[in-house]
């Protein structure tokens, strides 16, 4: 299977995301933000970082790049899946491919720490109940309106929740999907828990579960 790691100016988790995908036997390519043909890929990953310096608002500039137009049509064609991690998740909400938006962390500062997560969607994450992954963000406080929240919960679109909410996210949400289950977003960084010398390898379980979502 082929995966693409999209690189925007300011992306900074591209290398480790590449490594993690390779570890579960994906053929991986980096693709530049002006690239537009995505049909060859089974999974498109928007990695973490500070695309365009997070200037204006995280993800607000990256959403206008040529590659994001293609990502949008890619999701409509049911070709493969799109995964946004951290800044990638922020780009997906800014583009409207995932619902909701991000506020500054409740306590203001950037937070980097290992957090406990409860898996909510056991259909996707069949083999895990709990996860420990790193978060690293300033704007991870997920929010959305009541109606969407209700839909997310009811349709099993909440992937996982923080055990101890670190950033103020509504319902402690740490990751969600769209209604077709072909666009996924998460604030925690599975790529930082994917290799033998990492603190744990829970992130690999996340990538493996997502790989199974590719039809």
């Amino acid at each position, binding site marked *: 299977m082929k995966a693409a790691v999209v690189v925007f100016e300011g992306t900074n988790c591209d290398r480790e995301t590449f490594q993690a995908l390779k570890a579960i036997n994906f053929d991986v390519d980096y693709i530049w933000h002006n690239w537009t043909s995505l049909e060859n890929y089974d999974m498109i990953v928007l990695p973490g970082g*500070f695309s365009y310096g997070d200037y204006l608002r995280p993800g607000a500039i990256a959403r206008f790049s040529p590659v994001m137009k293609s990502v949008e049509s890619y999701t409509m064609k049911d070709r493969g899946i799109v995964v946004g991690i951290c800044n990638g998740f922020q780009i997906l909400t800014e583009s409207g491919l995932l619902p909701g938006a991000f506020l500054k962390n409740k306590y203001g500062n950037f937070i980097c720490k290992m957090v406990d997560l409860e898996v909510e969607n056991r259909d996707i994450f069949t083999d895990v109940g709990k996860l420990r992954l790193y978060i690293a963000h300033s704007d991870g406080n997920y929010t959305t309106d009541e109606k969407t929240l209700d839909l997310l919960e009811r349709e099993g679109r909440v992937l996982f929740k923080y055990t101890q909410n670190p950033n103020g996210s509504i319902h402690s949400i740490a990751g969600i999907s769209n209604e077709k289950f072909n666009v996924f977003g998460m604030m925690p960084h599975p790529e930082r828990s994917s290799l*033998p010398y990492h603190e744990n390898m829970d992130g690999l379980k996340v990538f493996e579960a997502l790989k199974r979502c590719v039809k």
Partner: protein
Amino acid sequence: MRISSEQLEKVSMSIDEYNTIVNILGREPNETELYIFSAMWSEHCGYKHSKRLIKEYFNVSDENAGIVWIEDVGIAFKVESHNHPCAVEPFQGAATGIGGIIRDIIAMGARPVALLDSLHFSKPHTYIYEGVISGISAYGNSIGVPTVGGEVRFDSAYSENPLVNVMAVGTVKKENLKTSKAQGVGNSVILIGSKTGRNGLHGASFASRKIDQSLNDRPSVQVGDPFAEKRLIEASMEICELDCIIAVQDMGAAGILSSTTEMTHDGGLGLDLFVDRVPLREKDMKPWEILLSESQERMAFLVKKGYEHEVEKIAEKWELDFAKIGKTTLNTEFRVFDGEKLVASLPLSFVTEPPDLSRRIEREYPITDEISEWNGTIENELIHLLSNPTIASKKSVYERYDYTVGGQTVKSPGSDAAVVHIKDSKGIALSLGGNGRYTRLNPLEGTKAVLFEACSNVIASGGKPLGITNCMNFGNPEIDEVAAQFYAAVKGLAEGSKLLDIPITGGNVSFYNESNGKQISPTPVVGVIGGVEDVQRIPSSYFVNVGDPIYLVGRREVPKNGASMYRNSDSFCKVNWNVCAETLHAIQQIISKELVISAHDVSSGGIAVACAEMAIGSMIGASISTNIHPFEEYPTRFILEIQKGHEKEFETEMKGIEFSKIGTIGGNSLIWNGEKIALSTLKDSYESLEEFE
């Protein structure tokens, strides 16, 4: 002589220096030339109070950063200070401090992989403290280089003049290693990066004088743009793959002027610069302003003539400005043109080699070898020490830094030394630290202690020390006392490096750390880099297995140390450095074996604090029974957890090294000679820095 003393003061130049210039040139310098000298002969660029001593004692290369090798991967590393800017504008000061040292690493052709900072403040949660930490967080996180370690220390000596020293580490393939020395006549000096504005004018001369609250120094502080830096890193990495790159130099203090003249002078060439070609962000800048501007996020590349377009293509991809601003020449003249007009013409070596003002002043510092004894109870003193902000957990600081971006971090902040994965099973251990308490009492012996402490950290994290870098933070070098302190510290570091047989690969000096006549404590900050054989086989920093025996390795009975955290007096303890070096060697050998389960070096607060830290980290207690002084400090002592049942093997291995079995792991309290202290109590004290939030 036509120049007035006001004019000289404006350019921070002495009348003697001015007269030297007139004598050698045989004429008065024009305005542009005067500014050129003011910057290049400032302490910050010219290192006139230190260069000769550093050269003589440290034997360092004059490249942008030092280098050690992990097989065929070069590890480039260097520390730099940004003390003055942080005193005036802490956020931007710290941010641009990160940006500056990162560019030293990319000038070696290396990709930055780790940052560490040594921060010295008067107390937590001040304006300066918050600003510096936010600045590091904002800039370092954005460029995607993990801040993996360092230290935060507190002492009233730094109330007006904080110390902000940043160490950057990068990796480079052998074939991509770059030099800063120019070669070949007619090659092109290319500027890549942000546009040049009036930012940071006089930054170099500003950093070379004391901080004066009555002067408005804020315009001398530059403003950082981490997004531009990130693009500059990526573009530079691509540019360094090109065959046409002859030399690379970062633009730091005195910007275009200093980077391009040093590059060509080091290569024995001359230089023609064309200031009108520099992309500007402001109108009507004078030639000297363009030359001296410290606008951030710019690099200089010397490119083989005819191949400039290869570099231009990469600059375009990353949306960075590109300009061919100069060329190397055969003679050793430095000429500056503004269009057709020649605005400066000087002998290059005269510009880059300021007069030597270094001094060798010998001073004796008191030393005591009376053995220290302890008969008191332990709980109050231990809680007091754990909640001392210098010792207390810095979690509330390092959780604001992205310490895992890059996915290479193996040992995180909070442990002795950070460990970063490099290649296959191999990694590097990194430590950076200073100790003003030690070096104030005895700059010679104290500096050795600082070096041995950094090595102890590296060893406790499973590394073998390979190289030393440093940043010497001192007061006004024109004061005899300060000059003596500096000379002693330089000698101390050189002697320590010999004792341990580890080379000093680079360094930086920051003078004039003074405010209102108050000098900071002499504070040499030492960075040590070590090689780790197998990143999956390094000891924990915290207690692991209930029932495992706990050993102290290193001296049992130690002399009274006036620099110990629990006491203040005026004499430093007498140290047998040869024995310390042997201890370090033995520990490094034993830690590579699997019988060491956890390890922590004994530093501030002595063995009681070291044991408490190991217990708090995993919330597993211990019972200690020993008559060794709980709080006294002495170099190269370690607390080791040894795998149960392997005591004999361990003790045999330690032959000839002083050690003592002091206790056993287990329980939910720390029991010290029968006195029981709940771990929760210790944890609350240790994490008290966070409660201020």
